[in-house]
């Protein structure tokens, strides 16, 4: 049911009010509604943009022993945990993380039972059919399925509903104040239990700039423009205990021509390992051949963010153009390096010099694009340690790179029952799930599909716990 009339929404005391409308919020809503609670979802985005960053996701990482749904072989708790340990470098809450990992296996059948469909196996370039289950149609299809399920369960959904304040009396939340649509009038939404699942703050550029410095204004935001952290900030201001580094965000290097917000998957660029990357002064600054792109994907956001004007250029020749997934923007092409430099706005002489030095440092070897081939430069700083092949065969191509923010790490501290913590200990009736508390588990780095795992696990728990509280 979709209601946006504030008169109706403010008239009663809801059992469970859910702030946010993405994967975690929907999982919470479905669990609470199935337990018999009267549930209201307050989604800050308009209906067309509902679902938060879940719209842009594609898969779900899942522990399993033997084949499970679309997943093959075994991906056990320990391997999952080791993968997480590696990307976070230990910045994780082991108890919460292991809880998420263990519960992920039972989530997959639950997702299928609530309308989510998975691709039987993946035909693309990433071989993740052991660790990650891919949604048929992607994250928006998953979000659509959950909204339909929630609707069938009688959950009320209000779109364009921006929660401004969580009113807390002692350890107990009494109501929320929210605006609806373009109307700035504040309305009180009364509830008995509250689930906060409204994401991080990466779409608030001022907040990003405070955390990161002015360079953050040049960052692109890969996901929804509606994750502005309004509720997170309100909770922090009220003394809620937080986890995660407030000055950090997860950024990858994406196509520099991508939209400021919401570019999603199509703006990723897989060309870096086969290229030479320079900054706006035509200088190289890092080993492009350190590892294959999916593994080294995340570090390039940070690397580009540290360059002048937060921009870089990945340069290849005609032999490399078909070695990676197509991206949405065509490469900039030219017959000579000099012409390419002019098209990119780089100093032509400097770029020609850098290419000449790079080419001179390349050594013969067997180029193998599918594996670390050890074909490295010699006497070059920084070196390129794999796939170092001369950039010599015209036409030459270039892609611009900019940092693309996927999410922020700052979040609410929760326990294993997804209950949030205030200045005086656990709140009585406030739970949190999804990106808003994922920093507890993902203190840094990222593991593909793990955001959806955290959202599903803790969203479901939050919904169950909130419903049990009001029952």
């Amino acid at each position, binding site marked *: 049911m979709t209601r946006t009339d504030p008169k109706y929404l403010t008239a009663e005391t809801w059992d469970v009010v859910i702030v946010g409308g993405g994967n975690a919020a929907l999982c919470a809503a479905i669990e609470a509604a199935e337990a018999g609670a009267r549930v209201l979802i307050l989604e800050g985005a308009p209906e*067309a*943009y509902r679902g938060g960053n879940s719209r842009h996701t594609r898969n779900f990482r899942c522990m399993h022993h033997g084949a499970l749904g679309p997943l093959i072989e075994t991906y056990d708790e320990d391997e999952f945990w080791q993968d997480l340990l590696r990307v976070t470098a230990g910045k994780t809450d082991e108890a919460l993380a292991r809880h998420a990992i263990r519960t992920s296996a039972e989530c997959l059948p639950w997702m299928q039972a609530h309308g989510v469909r998975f*691709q039987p196996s993946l035909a693309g370039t990433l071989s993740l059919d052991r660790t990650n289950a891919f949604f*048929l149609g992607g994250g928006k299809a998953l979000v659509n399925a959950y909204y339909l399920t929630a609707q069938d369960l009688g959950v009320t959904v209000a779109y364009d509903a921006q929660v401004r304040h969580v009113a807390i009396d002692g350890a107990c939340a009494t109501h929320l104040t929210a605006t609806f649509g373009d109307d700035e009038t504040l309305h009180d939404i009364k509830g008995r239990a509250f689930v906060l699942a409204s994401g991080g703050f990466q779409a608030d550029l001022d907040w990003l700039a405070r955390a990161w410095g002015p360079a953050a204004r040049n960052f692109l935001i890969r996901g929804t423009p509606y994750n502005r952290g309004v509720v997170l900030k309100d909770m922090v201001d009220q003394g809620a205990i937080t986890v995660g580094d407030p000055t950090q965000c997860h950024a990858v290097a994406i196509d520099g*021509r991508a*939209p400021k917000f919401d570019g999603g998957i*199509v703006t990723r660029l897989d060309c870096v390992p086969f290229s030479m990357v320079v900054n*706006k002064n035509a200088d190289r600054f890092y080993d492009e051949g350190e590892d294959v792109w999916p593994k080294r994907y995340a570090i390039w956001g940070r690397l580009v963010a540290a360059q002048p004007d937060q921009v870089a250029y990945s340069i290849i020749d005609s032999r490399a153009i078909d070695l990676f997934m197509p991206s949405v923007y065509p490469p900039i092409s030219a017959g000579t390096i000099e012409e390419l430099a002019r098209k990119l706005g780089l100093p032509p002489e400097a770029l020609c010099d850098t290419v000449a030095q790079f080419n001179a440092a390349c050594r013969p070897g067997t180029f193998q694009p599918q594996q670390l081939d050890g074909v490295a430069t010699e006497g070059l700083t920084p070196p390129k340690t794999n796939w170092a092949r001369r950039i010599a065969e015209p036409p030459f191509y270039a892609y611009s790179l900019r940092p693309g923010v996927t999410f922020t790490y700052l979040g609410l501290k929760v326990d294993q029952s997804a209950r949030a913590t205030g200045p005086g200990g656990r709140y009585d009736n406030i739970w949190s799930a999804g990106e808003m508390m994922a920093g507890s588990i993902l203190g840094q780095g990222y593991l593909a599909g793990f955001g959806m795992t955290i959202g599903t696990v803790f969203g479901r728990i939050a919904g169950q716990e909130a419903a049990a509280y009001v029952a």
Partner: protein
Amino acid sequence: MSLDVTLQTDPGLILDDPVAEARRQIEVCNACRYCEGFCSVFPAITRDKVFADGDITQLANLCHNCRGCYYACQYTAPHEFDLNLPRALAAARVDSWERFAWPDGPARLFQARGEALAAALVAGFALMFAAIAALPGGGAGFYAWLSHGAMVAIFLPAFLLPLVAVAVGLRRYWNEVGGARVTWADLRDAVQSAGQMKNLSGGQGQGCNFEKGTRFSDARRHVHHAVMYGFLLCFAATSAGTILHYVFDMQAPYGFWSLPKLLGVPGGILLVAGCAGMLMLRSQADPALGAPGRSSGERGFIWLLGFAGLSGLALYAVRGTGLTGPLLALHLGAVLAFFLVTPYSKMAHGFYRFAALVREAQDKKART
């Protein structure tokens, strides 16, 4: 700071050319690939990086307008990429039928305008009433109103000439999409796809999003099956009559327990029910996801096809009464109009879709 921002993702620049607009959208799809698994279009997209006009034509004719990709797409309006692949491919598809039609003038008219189809129907009625009035009947049943010889004289060319026109169009299609020599295996594959309408299954049998938005339903697959199998049964009934007439010297009228009636009566019922269902589903579906500017022609065609079926059933129902003559004129008039506009109306989609499925079978084979 100089970045090239003249992008093919800018919808405003090339929206007017249906092939260019479909190419723009397909290139976004190829960078995303979340929809692979819905239908054959998406695996076909991933086989290329650059798309020639013929590739776009092939993808457009492979699309069954199930709309699964639209509702799953993170880049639909209000997103600035403004994707609406079902509409873009529908536009490119209709554009291809109108370019390939021989001659092409009538296609532009009948694809777009329901009124033109209505006029063709009225002309068909008038011609048949005139024929019945002017030519002597000879025989039993409806031959008492119009002789077998007169019917053959009218319908043989009205059947064969459109087939010649369709063949010319298909040849042009095959050249543009770079089709290879057709094998029996290709045909078998295409017949299976068309017969089960695999591409309307949503990939996992859940159906399509044609009339219920984000919900899946098999309704369109069912009504389309009713239309297609109803039409094929009616066609088989006519063929059976022809064979009985010429091979076995058994002349109409045929009793109920005869091949023409056993095929034709259920065929007619299926055809009428299917057309009614199709019109109903269309009224519930979002018109912004279909071919722009062709809705009137598409609806008009369904009415024409449904009326041909309905008048055939009525003709059988009133056998032996004085209404046979007028209903014969109405039914034959509808059938005549239907045959003559086949290469220029929505009916053409059947031929091009089948060709696209044959081409897809070849393409799959070549890549595996």
